[in-house]
Structure formats: C-alpha cells, structure tokens
C-alpha cells in the first residue's frame, strides 16, 4: 500500500506545508497534540477549515493515508474529536459538520458487516461515495490554490496606459437612410387623416423645391426683377416650374409683385419680413 501512488503523494508539498493559521507570526501547519494551545490560536485554526470535507482531507493528509483506503473507524474518531472541540469552543458550527458525522458513523457500521465475496463492484464499498466526494473536493481545492498563484493583475503584473495629448474626439453624426425618412413620411401620411385632404398630391416636388429657391433668392428689403428668377438654360420645363412656384407663393401671400406700367418690368419681393 505504501508504494502505491496516492493523491497525497502527488501533491504533498502544498497540501502538507500550507499553513492553516499564523500563530504569533509563525505558521501553524499541524494541530499540536497534548500541548496547551492558546484558545484564540485554536479557534483560528479550527475556523480555517472550509467545511467537513476540508477537515477530513486534512486528517487524511496529516497521517499520509491513502484516500482510496481510508481507515474509517480511526478517521471517524479523530473527526469527532475536532467536532467536539469546535463545539466546546462555541464556534458557529456549520450544520454540514454534523451531517458528515452521521455519514461517517453509517459507513463505519456498514464496514463492520461481512462483505459478500462473489458480488463485485464498488457499490459494495461503503466508503465509495465519501471517497468520490473527497477527491472531487480536493481537485477544486487544488485548483483554487493553482488559480491563486496565477500571475494576477495588480499583484504580479500591472496594466499600463499612456496619454494621448492630441486626442481628437469627434462625435460622429447620426446616419440616416433615405428609406428611413420615407418610412417616417408614410407613417405621417397614414396617421394624418387631413393629409389626404391636402392638395399636395397634385403638387410636384419640383414646384415645392423651386418655391424654396425663389424665396431664398428674394428678400423683403428690396425688389428684384421678375425675370431674374428664371434660368433660360433650364428650358421650357424649368421655366414652367419656376412660374408655378411663383404663382403658388403669391397665392400663399408669401411674395409681392409690382408692375409699374403695362408691359413694364415686374418686380418681386418677399412679403413683410422687412421689420424682422
């Protein structure tokens, strides 16, 4: 049994040497036997256990026992000593410790029963479930220690950062798809009953656009010549669009036209914005 590779031998240093508590500045790796321990130190020591599995693992490691072949009677006896100690110290004893005590007692009693020879399988070993749980816990206990020694930011390594003096941060403008705008418009149309009564169906956008252009060209302070609103290069259609726009603007009283004499030059100005 002794030359068999056990878990405890695979990871002995960390397990055995890891101090459970610091007493007066020196690490306490083992519960001193038969010695007077200051109650505060014992309390720290006992509180360091992360539960019944941790305590059991400690007992097994301390005696270099094979986890796969635990002497249940002996371990149970030792376990109960610790639990009683904890109770005496009036530590807040997690209920799990007592559940484990019951489990150990049950295993112990089942170990006393004779094992049927023919029947095979691990289910026969009353310790199987306990061993499974101990091993399972031990591997994550080990994993936690491994994680603890990984290079850690703020302890073993540090993030770096430099300044960017000429930082130019421009807030980008929102992007709009033409489609989004058209969808918004159809929404308005669908929502607005009165929109249907507006005459805009017959109007063309080119006239609307030209209305804006004409308004932009004229100003309320002075008249400009009517003909200067037309661009001959646009051809007949362009002239018609401009004319329609001017008529519409007149209809809406947005422009004013003056003709001093028949066949004389016509002048245009924006309405009444002069006092603005």
């Amino acid at each position, binding site marked *: 049994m002794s030359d068999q590779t056990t878990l405890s031998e695979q990871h002995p240093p960390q397990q055995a040497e890891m101090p459970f508590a610091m007493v007066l500045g020196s690490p306490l790796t083992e519960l001193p036997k038969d010695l007077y321990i200051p109650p505060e130190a014992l309390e720290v020591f006992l509180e360091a256990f992360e539960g019944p599995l941790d305590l059991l693992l400690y007992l097994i490691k301390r005696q270099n026992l094979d986890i796969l072949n635990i002497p249940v009677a002996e371990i149970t006896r030792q376990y109960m000593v610790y639990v009683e100690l904890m109770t005496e110290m009036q530590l807040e004893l997690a209920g799990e410790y007592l559940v484990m005590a019951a489990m150990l007692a049950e295993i112990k009693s089942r170990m006393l029963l004779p094992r049927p020879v023919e029947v095979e399988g691990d289910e026969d070993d009353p310790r199987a479930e306990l061993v499974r749980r101990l091993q399972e816990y031990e591997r994550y206990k080990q994993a936690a220690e491994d994680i603890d020694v990984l290079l850690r930011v703020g302890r073993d390594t540090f993030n770096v950062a430099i300044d960017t003096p000429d930082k130019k941060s421009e807030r980008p403008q929102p992007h709009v798809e*033409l*489609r989004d705008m058209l969808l918004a418009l159809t929404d308005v149309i669908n*929502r607005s009953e009165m929109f249907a009564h507006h005459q805009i169906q017959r109007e063309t956008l080119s006239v609307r656009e030209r209305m804006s252009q004409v308004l*932009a060209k004229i100003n309320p302070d002075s008249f400009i010549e009517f003909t200067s609103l037309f661009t001959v290069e646009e051809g007949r259609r362009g002239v018609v669009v401009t004319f329609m726009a001017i008529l519409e603007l007149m209809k809406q*009283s947005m422009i004013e036209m003056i003709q001093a004499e028949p066949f004389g030059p016509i002048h245009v100005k924006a309405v009444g914005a002069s006092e603005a």
Partner: protein
Amino acid sequence: MSEITEQQLKNIIEAALLAAGEPLHVERLLSLFEEEVRPEKKAIVAAIEALQADCEGRGIELREVGSGYRYQARSEVSRWVSRLWEERAPRYSRALLETLALVAYRQPITRAEIEDIRGVAVSSSIMKTLLERGWVRIIGHRDVPGRPALYASTKEFLDYFNLKSLDELPTLSELKDIDKINAELDLRLPGEGRELEGESSEAITLSIAADAEPVCFD
C-alpha cells in the same frame, strides 16, 4: 538583496512610468527602491535618457511635463489612436425623421404646419438639430401673426441622400406603394445595414427611377 543592474533599473523605470497612469518625478521613482539598493539620482536620469533614446522612431515618446516624466502617444499617430474613443453615432428619433420628410415634401413650411400634419408638437431641439446638420434652413417668414419661420431643404440634404433634385424623391402616390418599395429594398438590404450605405442609396435611386412617372403639371 543583490545590486540592481543598469538594465534592471531601466526596466523598472519603464514599467513604473507606464503603469503609474500619471507623470512621475525622479524622486517618486527613487522611492520605489529600498534604501539599501536605492540607485543614485543620476542613474535614474541616465536610465530615463536611455529610455527616451529607445523611443526614437516608435509610436510613443517619453517626455518631461510639468509634473514629471510620462510616456505619451506621438502626435504622428494620434489621428489613428484617437479613433479608439470615437463615439458611436447616435440615432435620430422618428419625430426628427418625420419633420425632415415634411420639410422636404412640403417646403416652404412653418413649424406650426408641421405640427398640424404630424398631430403633435415639434420640439425646438429637432429644428435646431436639422438646422445644425445643414439639411434644413430658414428661407423666410410667413406674413402671419408671429411671423413664423419658413423651412426648406438644402443642397446638403440632397447631397447626403445622393439626390440631384427633390424630383428624385418618390412622389406621394408612389409612397403609397411604399410596401412595394420596401419589398424591393429588403431584397437588396437585409437588416439595417449601416455599412451598406452606398448600396442602399443606389438601390433606392434605381427603384425610384423605375417607378417614377413622367412629371407633369396641370
């Protein structure tokens, strides 16, 4: 503790200056070393000078500023580095898009008229945004009490949407078939597709051109 070598000293100072997150004085750098192994001030200065020389031709430089030494990005690379902090473009609200559409289709138009059609108030911030973006401008005032501003679309508006003139926008009757337009757009444009900007406007232009009836005035 053994003596700290020149190279080690350089490494410590390099890492400290980069990790500090603020400029460091020589005194502060000296304080990183326990007294027994504390280098002389001139050794620190020499290490800093060596580190400065190491930055030659690289993307960063080690400069002395008011409160000490610090590494910083060189101005030559700042235009690229700055893009790390570029904010993501916000999105315009539905209300803004509706307002924009009404200005485009019904210009010149007053805010009251927009509100009339939309059935809800138009916030000042919407008009302000559209004016600032340069898509809308005030081209006059209607001669009614209050002399409300008349809004119209701009050349920038046409440019942004890749239109030669407002004519290229679908007419309102065509918009009634928006579902059809949508279907066509969706075929080409799965999803919102910001990155498909170029494609989408092309697609729209095409579909409009195909649908567009000859413009006539009566």
